[in-house]
């Protein structure tokens, strides 16, 4: 249906889309996920030329959208778009919002357009609002009217740009229900969304975008349950991390502690968890102290929100071996404290680096 090849878009020096190649096949529901600012909405807006790409190609049903000979308004009519901010015409009633396009652009009769509009309003559960104005509607109702307005033009594909992001959480469900119904009815859709559970349920394919490229794509099971790439995994598991590098035995423990405390506060972790984490970090670093200066140590502390777990990973250069076993300690006090604070640990050799992974007990 839509074939995108090597699409590029930049704003000044900022490359928002670097090289996008993908396709949306008829009947597919494709969810586009990824961090904010990564080009998801820009991609969608390029597909119907609300933004003009700087390179690459977009074919819609075989018609090259960027070819000067192409009747772009005609091609655009085959695509509907639903925006985050609804974009209803506030000076028109719900009925007028729905009938304007079919009458002016498709030459439908008033009676025909109104009959169709009523059917669509029933589909989205808003028949009783037919004569209301947008200002009289809730956010969820406005978005459902926006979807109905889109359907009134009988599009072959609907592009949804974060359809629920501007909604109160209590209204998200009503809009997602309408979109699910469209999916069940076989509508081809591309949906930019932050609703991960919804994307998993409704999609045939999920595209994870990061830094202006398609970083990973696959079935919902692949992307959400078995992501192959690290950034995908971090995003879908809502993993947030703090990383630091320690290269000297005289590292600033208190500066590191302040950063760890700030990280914990941001994740709204309990005080006890924070205290245990600080103690664990200090004790673990003691095992590396003698070597610091001749090795480099990278520490990553990650909070996996989905699992409510805290991971501490220490990667170090130097001779192969588990530092917790090989480091010379005057007693086992440090190791006893570490073992009391962790759920599990894992040592591995990754290329030329030792890797220790710990999960903090909760």
């Amino acid at each position, binding site marked *: 249906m839509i074939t995108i090849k090597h699409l590029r878009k930049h704003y000044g020096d900022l490359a928002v889309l670097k090289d996008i190649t993908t396709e949306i096949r008829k009947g597919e529901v494709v969810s586009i996920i990824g961090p904010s600012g990564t080009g998801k909405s820009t991609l969608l807006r390029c597909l119907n030329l609300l933004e003009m790409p700087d390179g690459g190609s977009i074919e819609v049903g075989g018609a090259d959208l960027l070819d000067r000979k192409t009747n772009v308004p005609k091609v655009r009519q085959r695509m509907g778009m639903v925006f985050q901010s609804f974009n209803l015409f506030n000076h028109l009633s719900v009925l007028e919002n729905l009938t304007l396009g079919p009458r002016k652009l498709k030459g439908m009769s008033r009676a025909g357009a109104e009959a169709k509009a009523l059917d669509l309003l029933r589909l989205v559960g808003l028949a009783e609002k037919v004569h209301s104005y947008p200002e009289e509607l809730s956010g969820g109702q406005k978005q459902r009217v926006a979807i109905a307005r889109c359907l009134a033009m009988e599009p072959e594909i609907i592009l949804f740009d974060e359809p629920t992001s501007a909604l109160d959480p209590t209204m998200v469900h009503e809009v997602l229900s309408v979109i699910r119904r469209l999916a069940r009815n076989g509508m081809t859709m591309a949906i930019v969304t932050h609703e991960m559970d919804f994307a998993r349920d409704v999609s045939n394919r999920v595209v994870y975008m990061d830094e202006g490229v398609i970083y990973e794509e696959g079935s919902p099971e692949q992307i959400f349950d078995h992501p192959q790439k690290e950034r995908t995994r971090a995003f879908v598991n809502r993993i947030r991390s703090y990383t630091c590098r320690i290269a000297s035995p005289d590292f600033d*423990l*208190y500066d590191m502690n302040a950063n760890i405390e700030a990280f914990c506060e941001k994740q709204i972790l309990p005080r006890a968890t924070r*205290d245990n984490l*600080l*103690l664990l970090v*200090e*004790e673990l670093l*003691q095992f590396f102290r003698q070597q610091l200066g001749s090795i480099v140590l990278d520490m990553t502390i990650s909070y996996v929100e989905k699992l409510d777990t805290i991971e501490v990973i220490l990667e170090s250069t130097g001779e192969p071996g588990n530092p917790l076993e090989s480091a010379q300690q*005057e*007693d086992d*006090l*440090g190791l*006893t*404290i570490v073992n*009391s*604070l962790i759920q599990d640990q894992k040592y591995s050799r990754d290329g030329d680096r030792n890797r220790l992974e710990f999960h903090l007990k909760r």
Partner: protein
Amino acid sequence: MIFTTRVEDGSCVVSLGGRLDTVTSPACEEKFRDLVSAGHLAVVIDLATLDYISSIGLRVLLQVARQLKERNGKVCLANATHNVMSVFEMTNFTRILLIKSSVDEALESMREKE
């Protein structure tokens, strides 16, 4: 780290405050060494305002106990905060050093040992 001393009931009561960790332990160890060298052989360590202790801090306390024992002295800890007590329990410190709930109880235990 805060390290203040007072003499009470024949014992030297040392109030430790803040953190006893990699950064503060060396200075704390030196202060304890000076205290013992100055002849204070009955020491109560008040931990009421000590928020944090790591293994290196535990070693400082063990070192104090060792030095006092060599001189036939004695030491008792008191008022451990929740965090500090938790570390004592992890490491079975409660079996190694005498720990009381208050300075008064610690002072009393010093008298009993006589």
